């Protein structure tokens, strides 16, 4: 039923097809995180791949910076209802990280880990095939701490909480294990086009 007196502000037609249901476009870059912003010195930074509990590869910042780099322009969608079109990122594809480690995708599920102990789960199929990267630059500049720098996961086709900030590693898991927000009522998959915001959304 209509809300009395509400007309709403529409997304311009030329952008409507790119804006998922329930989202509004923003030109700012809002910030969402569960705690204070960690400051991670590049000398202390490292990135680890694990299969289950077992570390299988690890890169220092210098080593990671030598991996092949990819640029992306993508639309991003935050569960708090903002979407931002044409955001420009640069980083290393998850495919290239796996290749550098000499690995094929080891299991069907992945848990991303942050230096702030944040975790979030993503099916491995959503990370490979060019679908996701570990981003270290945004809009032509090193990624700022507020937005997850030195490096964050970028899975643009899922709600943005899946794009873990301050990424410290990826862990391949046998089962789909819930991460931080997924344990707190948010959806296990998080497809913005199907409005999978909360755990009982279809």
């Amino acid at each position, binding site marked *: *039923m*209509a*809300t*009395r*007196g*509400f*007309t*709403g*502000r*529409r997304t311009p037609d030329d952008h409507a097809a790119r804006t998922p*249901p*329930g989202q*509004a476009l*923003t030109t*700012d*870059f*809002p*910030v*969402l*995180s*569960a*705690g*204070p*912003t*960690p400051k991670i010195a590049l000398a202390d930074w490292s990135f680890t791949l694990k299969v289950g509990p077992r570390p299988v590869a690890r890169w220092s910042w210098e080593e990671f910076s030598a991996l092949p780099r990819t640029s992306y322009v993508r639309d991003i969608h935050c569960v*708090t*209802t903002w979407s931002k079109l044409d955001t420009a990122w640069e980083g290393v594809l998850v495919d290239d990280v796996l290749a550098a480690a000499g690995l094929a995708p080891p299991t069907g599920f992945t848990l991303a880990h942050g230096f702030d*102990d944040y975790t979030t789960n993503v099916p491995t199929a959503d990370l490979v095939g060019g679908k996701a990267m570990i981003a270290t630059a945004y809009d032509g500049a090193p990624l700022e701490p*507020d937005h997850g720098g030195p490096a964050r996961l970028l899975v643009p086709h899922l709600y943005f909480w899946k794009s873990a900030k301050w990424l410290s590693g990826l862990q391949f898991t046998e089962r789909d*294990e*819930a991460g*931080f*927000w997924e*344990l*707190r*009522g948010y959806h296990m998959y998080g497809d913005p086009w199907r409005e999978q915001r*909360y*755990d*009982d959304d279809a």
Partner: protein
Amino acid sequence: MSLPDAAKVSGWRSAAIVEAAPLTPRVKRIVLGLDPPLRFRAGQHVDLRLTAPDGYQARRSYSIASAPETPDRLELAIEKLEDGEVSPFFHEVAEVGDAIDLRGPIGGHFVWSVEDGGPLLLIGAGSGVAPLMSMVRHRAARRDRTPTALLLGARTAADAPYREELLALAAADASLGIIFLLSRQTPQGPFDRAGRVDAQSVRAATEGWPGPARHVFVCGSNPFVNAAAEAALAGGAASASIRTERYGG
């Protein structure tokens, strides 16, 4: 797998506005009547959804400011963003009797119950006071005496939501400390200080505690939350004890 207290989010339901009145020039109190009541924990939020005649919908999150002990009257504190889509509707159009779609409760991180203990440090500004208010009201409803300090930033005393209610609560409860930090007005009373949330005001608020805060909750706009979380760290709080809720850019 789920946390013991993981929130079960309800489907969309309709609720009538039973009260609408300004809290400050920029923040409006909206009370929704709920039958059946909505069980929630202090700090959680709800999503509200507005629908235009052609079916177009907009939804936004709002923290619950009332205590879990009054689950049939959900109080929200909505700040007006001039160029906003939803918040101006609540300031200019919404009236008592209007039906609003709501879903919740949402959020299992920014929550506190008396069982979680303290000391408890709450830092907020603007409508970011809302979830902290729910915690303070919850604590009062349970006659709990967890050592609690509230640090609230505002331009002037008149811009601080819930000022009178908070002053009355603090007057009746020695374990509740309140400091209003006024950035554009000289102190108006013994609970006011000039300036902004910084390490010094965090130390002043937590003076006399046996140790650092066990739980710190910081809520408001993103720049405020960044500054206040830094202040809490500089004032002695441990990083892992700090939880933040950010309302926007």
